[in-house]
């Protein structure tokens, strides 16, 4: 079982620990609903150190990345963060990642915990004889997220960097106290906030520093349970649920991250074909009409014809009803349209919603 640099902290805080994809992680501390609501109204602090961090450095770094991801790396400037899928030759998604540009010869990639080895092998397979160095720094990094409306007021006293100058999807190298930290204005909750990257050895110290700074501001430790309900309210996809090797970014509603005009990249041909032809499926978000709660794997119906399955479902603490995402066949599926979800043998109605359900 893999443990993050903060596992000791979670146990001390009374975190309910579970095995998650080979990692020993807290699913909740005080309760999923309380933690979820704290992020929406004040702030929450998360341990995301299970995520992977790779560095790509060298003269061919930009060219290499440009070929592997669907979004346009050449349009990045220093300090920018970019969200992009990475596709295989059939246009299916290998992973969805964040790209950080330090310079045109130095990039950091942040990848899903479940895909660290897969992605590293993928990059190595395509590296060939290009002039670049690829390193996996996942074990040496700690990643702490602070998310919620009070995030800036909690973090600002810890750093001399003016946080209001770091805009959404930008980052800065700075310090919190005397700890070198990369401050990234990104997140997976639909709230304002930062993700803080630091050396693993500084993890506990950084966590304690943030907790101390948050006295009276209601900063709450948040586990993976609330992380999931928050991201689902914000209509963010999860690799393994909405995204996988057999699903294209166009089907997943990520067309905005696919820059077909940028030059060659892996998966371009099938994506071009798909864009001009018909998709076989599309991702929709829906909210339940009644009190039922949709769950991963439940069958979806449109006009009583079976369409597909729910990819993610939960009870939304903000909207106080069941919400979910799933794939339906493409010709149909407009906002406001009703679909049926088979919940333990009974078909219950839901309404296709505009994406995202929630954004602050």
């Amino acid at each position, binding site marked *: 079982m893999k443990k993050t640099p903060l596992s000791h902290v979670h146990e001390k805080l009374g975190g309910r620990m579970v095995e998650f994809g080979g990692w020993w992680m807290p*699913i*909740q501390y005080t*309760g*999923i*609903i*309380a933690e*979820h609501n704290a992020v929406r109204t004040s702030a929450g602090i998360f341990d995301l150190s299970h995520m992977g961090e790779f560095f790509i450095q060298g003269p061919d770094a930009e060219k290499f990345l440009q070929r592997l991801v669907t979004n346009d790396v050449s349009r990045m400037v220093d300090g920018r963060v970019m969200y992009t899928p990475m596709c295989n030759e059939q246009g299916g998604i290998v992973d969805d990642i964040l790209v950080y540009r330090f310079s045109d010869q130095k990039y950091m990639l942040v990848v899903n915990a479940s895909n660290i080895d897969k992605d590293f092998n993928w990059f190595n397979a395509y590296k060939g004889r290009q002039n670049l160095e690829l390193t996996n720094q996942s074990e040496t990094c700690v990643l702490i997220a602070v998310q919620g409306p009070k995030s800036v007021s909690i973090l600002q006293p810890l750093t001399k960097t003016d946080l209001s100058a770091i805009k959404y999807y930008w980052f800065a190298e700075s310090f919190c106290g005397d700890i070198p930290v990369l401050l990234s204005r990104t997140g997976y909750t639909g709230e304002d906030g930062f993700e803080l990257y630091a050396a693993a050895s500084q993890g506990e110290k950084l966590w304690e520093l943030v907790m101390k700074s948050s006295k009276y501001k209601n900063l709450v430790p948040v586990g993976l*349970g609330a992380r*999931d*309900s928050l991201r689902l309210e914000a209509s963010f996809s999860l690799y393994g649920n909405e995204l996988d090797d057999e699903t294209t970014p166009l089907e997943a509603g990520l067309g905005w991250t696919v820059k077909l005009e940028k030059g060659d990249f892996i998966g371009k041909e099938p994506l071009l074909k798909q864009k001009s032809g018909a998709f076989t499926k599309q991702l929709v978000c829906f909210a339940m009409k009644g*009190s*039922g*709660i949709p*769950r991963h794997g439940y069958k979806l119906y449109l006009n009583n014809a079976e369409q597909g399955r729910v990819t993610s479902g*939960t*009870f939304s*603490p903000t909207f106080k009803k069941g919400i979910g995402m799933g794939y339906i066949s493409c010709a149909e599926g407009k906002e406001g349209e009703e679909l049926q979800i088979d919940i*333990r043998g009974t078909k219950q109605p839901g309404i296709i919603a505009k994406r995202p359900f929630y954004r602050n």
Partner: protein
Amino acid sequence: MKLLENVKYAKTHEWSRRDGYEITVGLSDFAQHEISDIVHIELPAAGQRVEAGKPCAVVESVKAAFDIYAPLSGSIVKINQDLETTPELPNQDPYGKGWFFTIKPDNIEEHESLMDAAVYEKFAAEGKH
């Protein structure tokens, strides 16, 4: 975990209390704590027949759905309507306001074969669920 001495417990973590010719059924404190925030409960209908050891209700948390099993065979007499508007009652008061339903059992003597508090405490602590 909170235990009441005058109730019996099933291996599936329901509590059962003799009330005249009926038994009242709910979710043990141990189970409500494991499940955590309950957001929705599906109850059987009054008059519905239930079989001992078979699922007859569903409790949902944010993350998952859990079956509730009838401790004895019989028919449902009363159901707790408050659970529809306040599903968190079993979290707050599992042995009082959080009761689920009552059953008129086929054979009330079978109640004696359920676990008493001391046995259940040991069983739950051993974590087999």
